[in-house]
């Protein structure tokens, strides 16, 4: 009963695999190898250096502070964007007048170019002329302008991460909404007949069924928060109060021109991303049958 090899699936995935091998795996292989070399154009020659790059970056005080900060970014960012993503998707689940417009409105934060986003939020948080200070003061909630960024670590990171959450929540929402659209109406009808209310049907029906969407959304926000760069760089400079791993990768590679160390740090970020993504996805991801 041995079957002949079925070529169709291979034919279907081959264009994808060609792209991945040539333009994702090849560059990645290059950096993985280079992570074990001393690649320092200012200090040639390039030679094999074993784990030296990894040792050096883990003794770099900026990298260490960015490691802790990035951890806080991930916790805040993943939680907020996922909760908001589920909430927004549930709101948009059913047909109602203006839903199409609302979806278009929803994606606006994502479509705003990074530079403009930076200027916008600098203008909101700014301690000297910021809008938030202005509004809070006119409502008599504060007596004088407050410093939101750069003074208190957690507040600074929170304020910066809100900006990123604002930008990535459209992605989480669309990912979850796509799966939500796949739940047949009759399931809800059945639930209503059983007498379960909105909250119950969300808890026992919606939530389990949208797990695949949530898994993708969570992994996407892990990747985004682990690579946060523009927002802290624009809003808080290179200060250790809120510097991120990605900023340090950039500084080590493009400012210090120590590419070997930069690649080593990138490799660590990749492994770290994979590690938590696999755990989280395993935890959330369950094949859904109905």
């Amino acid at each position: 009963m041995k079957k002949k090899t079925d070529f169709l699936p291979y034919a279907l995935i081959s264009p994808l695999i060609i792209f991945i091998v040539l333009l994702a795996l090849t560059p990645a292989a290059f950096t993985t190898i280079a992570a074990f070399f001393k690649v320092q154009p200012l200090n040639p020659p390039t030679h094999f250096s074993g784990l030296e790059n990894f040792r050096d970056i883990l003794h770099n005080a900026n990298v260490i502070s960015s490691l802790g900060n990035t951890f806080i970014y991930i916790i805040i960012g993943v939680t907020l964007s996922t909760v908001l993503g589920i909430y927004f998707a549930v709101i948009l689940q059913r047909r109602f007048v203006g839903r199409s417009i609302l979806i278009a409105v929803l994606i606006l934060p994502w479509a705003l170019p990074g530079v403009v986003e930076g200027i916008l939020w600098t203008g909101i948080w700014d301690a000297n002329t910021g809008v938030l200070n202005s509004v809070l003061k006119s409502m008599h909630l504060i007596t004088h302008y407050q410093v939101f960024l750069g003074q208190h670590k957690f507040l600074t990171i929170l304020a910066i991460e809100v900006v990123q959450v604002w930008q990535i929540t459209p992605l989480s929402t669309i990912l979850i909404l796509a799966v939500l659209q796949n739940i047949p109406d009759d399931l809800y009808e059945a639930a209503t007949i059983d007498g379960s209310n909105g909250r119950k049907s969300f808890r026992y029906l919606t939530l389990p069924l949208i797990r695949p969407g949530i898994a993708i959304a969570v992994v996407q926000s892990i990747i985004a928060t682990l690579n946060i760069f523009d927002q802290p760089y624009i809003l808080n400079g290179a200060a250790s109060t809120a510097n991120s791993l990605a900023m340090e990768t950039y500084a080590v590679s493009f400012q210090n021109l120590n590419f070997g160390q930069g690649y080593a740090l990138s490799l660590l970020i990749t492994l770290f991303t994979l590690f938590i993504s696999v755990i989280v996805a395993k935890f959330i991801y369950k094949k859904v049958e109905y």
Partner: protein
Amino acid sequence: MQNAIKISKSQKSIAIVVAVASAFGFASLAAPAKAASPVTISVVLAAPPLPPAMLAEFTKATGINVKWTQVDWDSLQTKIAAGSTANTYYADATDVDWSRVGQLGKLNWFLPMEKYLDTKALATDMPQLSSFTKNGHVVGIPYDASFMVTTVNKALFAKAGITKMPTTIDEYTADLKAVKAKNVVQYPLNIPFAAAEGLSTYWYETTGAFGGHILDAAGKPLFTDPASAGYKAAAWMVNAVKTGLVPPGNINVADSQGQQTLMAKGKVASTFSDYSGNVGSLYDVAASSSVVHQVQYLATPGASGPTSNLGNPDGIGIPVKAKNPAAAAKFISWFTDGKNMADFAGANGTARTWVGYFFPSRLSGIAILNKKGSIIGGDVLAGMLKTSAAVFPQGAPAWYPEFSGAVYTNLHAAAAGTMTVDAAIKAIGAVATKLSSGK
């Protein structure tokens, strides 16, 4: 058998889908911009294109077309590093910043300009050329002689009863205190304490005012002694925040942000290290300022009288991978011609004025400008340019970007109060010592 037919059939449909997709792709996308038959060079700078009339003149005289690409400064540095590391052509002529001279020189990412231009003859007319020379090679040619200056809002000073402008740093500090005491403005001084390049530059300028240098010729730190100018400058800056001369919110304000949202709005009375040109292009422009005709340049107050200003000129050079270095050199020669630079600065009307350009790097260009008297505060500035000094007279060290990173992160932390000035200086000194000894 049936299976096999199925496969070939489905493969066909895949092929069609893929072909349609790619056809859509390739049809519209393939053709890259091909160089026209006459020589075309690509110039990439962090500046808007030159006036079309001027570029047309160059093309008419030389037959060389110029394709101008504007990229913001930060991104341009990334592009230069990426292009050079990947050993790829990305431009025929591009930015050589004063702070990158050492790095670009040591890496041999740019062609030596002395091979293409008579740089010896140029040096006599171009005072800043020496700081663009590293290991005997000229890395780039300065085209805009900008430098740091002190700016003062005279109207606000006058309100505090100050009519005689300060000439020493002590007088300057006392005047700022008076402005604060009389409550003319709550915080009179703008220092951009955000952890970014502008903070480093501010410290260099202040160090110069206290009469000293940052590094010696070997790159060793000169600022670790509490009696040194660099140490005093750092202490003065941090103290200014602690004593309420600087707005507390400035902990996160970047250089241009402070100039635009504080100085230009009359919320502060002075910026010790401001950009030359800002009076004309920012403070006197009604659309961007509410202090029109109130701000003036001030000879930098020093330890015992007016002192030199810190030069931060922009330069242009030819990357090694340039496709057409000879044509690029011709362009650079024309671009840094005294008369043309005077035109860029506005000597011959708006059609020949280059937006955002400040000051010729050649004395002959300045002479033309002065004759025309077409620059705001031109006489003061011309005087300052004569005494403007390079931060690193021998050219910036190759490891400048890493050093500057240590400067701004540690000074920022000292201003935020998370470390003492002493600890910050020690940390910066340690980085300089480590880098200059080549690790």
